């Protein structure tokens, strides 16, 4: 499996996208914090975090006695630079803007 494959696979799951969104709002969280926002066991949350870590989307660091989880946006940037930018950046951002606008007014 290539690096890109691992990123796409990791992103292809709503729970894992939810975890990334939580880290985007506030970075550097413990497993206990992240787990408390999910309706699943600690083991389940750990499994998802492991997939995110393997894909490089989450980086963990020890801080004192705690293990903190950080969102690492670089793999998404690499995919953006290699794929999305190359073909459709302008169109995609125009459509994304339109979607945001329509949803805000709806």
């Amino acid at each position, binding site marked *: 499996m290539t690096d890109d494959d691992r990123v796409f696979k990791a992103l292809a799951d709503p729970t894992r996208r939810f975890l990334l969104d939580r880290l985007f709002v506030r970075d*550097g969280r413990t497993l206990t914090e992240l787990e408390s926002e999910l309706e699943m066991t600690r083991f389940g949350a750990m499994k998802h975090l492991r997939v995110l870590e393997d894909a490089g989307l989450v*980086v963990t*660091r020890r801080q004192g006695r705690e293990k903190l989880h*950080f969102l690492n946006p*670089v793999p998404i940037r*690499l995919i953006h630079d290699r794929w999305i930018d190359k073909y459709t950046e302008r169109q995609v951002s125009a459509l994304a803007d339109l979607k945001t606008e329509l949803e805000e007014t709806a």
Partner: protein
Amino acid sequence: MTTMTETSVTTQVYRVYIKATPEAIWDAITDPDWTEKYGYGGRAEFDLRPGGAYKGFTSEAMRSMGAPDLGVDGEVIEADRPRKLVQTWRMVMDPEMAEQGFTRLTWEIEEGKGGVTKLTVIHDLEGAPKLATLVSGAMEDQGAGGGWSWVLSDLKTLLETGKPFDKTEF
């Protein structure tokens, strides 16, 4: 700032795997002939010993838009080629960011399997919320560049292909 309820952790962590030697990555970070080839494209000047000065100059493109010569300044705290570089880092181009003072930047370079090296950038941005926004890439649509993820993505492309990511290429 009293609005710290949303973000209590002010550290940002970035990691990229690059098919290059730790020495090549170290040089790409510290050698001006390399630093001008990727990311924001300015020349960096490091006095690579504890207490040594760091100067991050602006690129020609930035200066043509009215930027001063010096973009970033700081001091080297630890320089252990090719494994670890710790430095302070202050954006001086923007008065508001300059006022928020020095932040701490750590570069960790770790050799892995198959000629792939792990580069981790840890930016401790305590007391510098505006800079934190800038380096996160959130100001990219204002022409401020894509922050660390953009710089590191470009660095990877440069070291692996010999040329930086270039939007005008296609």
